[in-house]
């Protein structure tokens, strides 16, 4: 009963923020595109399925490209694939960040120092160069979205692990944690029940930020011709193919503009959701709200 109330009020409150509303609409549109991708009449990797080079019309809403593919249906797959990479990256890097951050913060001492050193090392590595190197050497391995996601996750857990660690460091000293110890709670339960709820808001907002970063990385790699097989549509590969095939030079502006506008909309939407969520979940505002509106 209580949980339903808070979810309803959460959504009601978030909708007061215009940023959240706009972002929400954009994300809904993207989700629609993802669903549509399952109904695509064309195989995205096949070429010359439709007449090439046609500008946007009623039959082809975003036009067709020079390779004889319908840009609209390409986009549905691109959005789906890019989001898959982003979700895999964000999911795994959050799990690593939370586990490591909490361990380092709660245990302290040598465990903390070892973990933090490892994390700091991954942060200072020139990851772009390493990503490029791995993509070149293990070309087939990185073609798989899942593998690419894991690789990207490896480079992005360290920062947020630090943030979580510092929060846990201060939480550890608070009296309710001492009371929890006196109540006989085993360490793992203390972490799950007492500490995690305080830490989760950060996890949510950094999840979304991480998604944005992953998409940006995917686009960068695709632009360099690395990572994903260029025939598989992602936002990055669509962009790369359009540039490589000189879409602008040929006057096929819709081919180039589609991935660019999509990328921009996606970044803005993700950013606005993360910002409005994190402002809403700010602990001070949260505590004032508990007990209100009963």
């Amino acid at each position, binding site marked *: 009963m209580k949980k339903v109330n808070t979810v309803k*009020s959460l959504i*009601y*409150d978030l909708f007061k923020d215009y940023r959240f509303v706009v972002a929400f609409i954009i994300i809904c549109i993207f989700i629609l595109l993802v669903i549509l991708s399952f109904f695509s009449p064309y195989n995205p990797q096949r070429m010359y399925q439709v007449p090439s080079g046609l500008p946007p019309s009623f039959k082809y809403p975003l036009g067709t490209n020079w390779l004889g593919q319908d840009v609209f249906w390409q986009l549905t797959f691109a959005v789906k694939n890019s989001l898959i990479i982003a979700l895999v990256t964000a999911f795994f890097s959050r799990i690593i960040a939370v586990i490591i951050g909490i361990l380092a913060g709660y245990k302290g001492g040598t465990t903390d120092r070892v973990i933090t050193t490892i994390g700091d090392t991954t942060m200072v590595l020139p990851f772009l160069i390493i990503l490029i190197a791995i993509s070149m050497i293990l070309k087939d391995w990185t073609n798989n979205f899942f593998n690419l996601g894991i690789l990207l996750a490896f480079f992005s857990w360290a920062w947020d692990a630090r943030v979580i660690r510092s929060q846990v460091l201060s939480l550890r000293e608070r009296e309710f944690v001492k009371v929890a110890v006196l109540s006989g709670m085993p360490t793992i339960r203390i972490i799950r029940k007492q500490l995690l709820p305080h830490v989760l808001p950060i996890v949510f907002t950094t999840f979304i930020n991480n998604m944005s970063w992953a998409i940006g990385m995917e686009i960068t790699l695709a632009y360099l011709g690395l990572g994903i097989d260029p025939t598989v549509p992602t936002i990055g590969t669509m962009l790369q193919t359009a540039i490589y095939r000189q879409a602008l030079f040929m006057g096929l502006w819709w081919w180039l503009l589609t991935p660019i506008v999509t990328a921009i909309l996606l970044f803005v939407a993700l950013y606005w959701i993360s910002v409005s969520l994190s402002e809403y979940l700010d602990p001070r505002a949260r505590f*004032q*709200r508990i007990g*209100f*509106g009963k």
Partner: protein
Amino acid sequence: MSEVLKTENLKAFYILEYWGEKRVIKAVNNVNLSIKQNEIYGIAGESGCGKSTLLKALLANLDPPLQLIDGKLFYKTNGDFIDVFSLTKKEIKNLRWSFISYIPQGSMHVLNPVKKVKDSFLEILESHIKAKDIKEYFDLMREHLKDLGLSPEILEAYPHQLSGGMRQRVVIALATLLHPQVILADEPTTALDVVAQRAVIQLLKDIQETFKNTIIIVTHDMGIHAQLTTRMSIMYAGKIIEEAPTQEIFKNPIHPYTKYLIQSLPKIGEKEQREGISGSPPSLIYPPPGCAFHPRCPEAKPECAEEEPKLIEVSPQHKVACFPN
């Protein structure tokens, strides 16, 4: 003795809006004060009675969600009364530290933890006095500390290196740097142990005796009021319920709440059973009807729940808001 600060029917509420629902916290509800020069005025009351908000209002520090609902505040500078709420922000800012200054509850709220004490002092001096060079400022600082009996070495320390009691005295030195006419102290000794507390009270007394200014001190500790203040009032649920010279309050308390506050705390040497008052401090959002204290009052009568008693003078300088027996 002439007045230096007064309020008329001051009302300041916190207005909170969440989920379309409005909550109004009536922290300062129709307060009339008349503070004289050369006196130490105490305001006693427990947490949640509105006394900290009252100090904020006296400083004209009304930031949302705290809003001025009604009433006036006057300072007497250079012989005239000024209506403080009609001044511009800049004019109010000029008065701070020079006419009226504030000692907050936690000393770390005033001292910048990454700056040495002398730099905090310098900041205040530079914004109010134009001196020729830094040396003049430092001379001013050292002399002020000497006047207060504090060693000038503390200027070179960082706040966390000083003990709690010492920090609080530094904050007091800071507040009195420009010799203000009125000093507001909000629970200046709460986090301190007995000995440090005594040193802080001692300092405040010395300052008042030397500069002959006015100190308004807010604390729930009746012992401090007895040691320090010349006149005091008791606050409950946003209103003043009794006011009199300190001697009179302790010898002849009239309001049941005042009587309770004085008798409740144990003394060394006495082991008889003492009781707390039943119930808890009232909500400032939904205060009880009539007299706010009536649900907990051992002497409550039927009219106490219906009508709010007004603050009337029952003997020279002794005012109380309670229906007589």
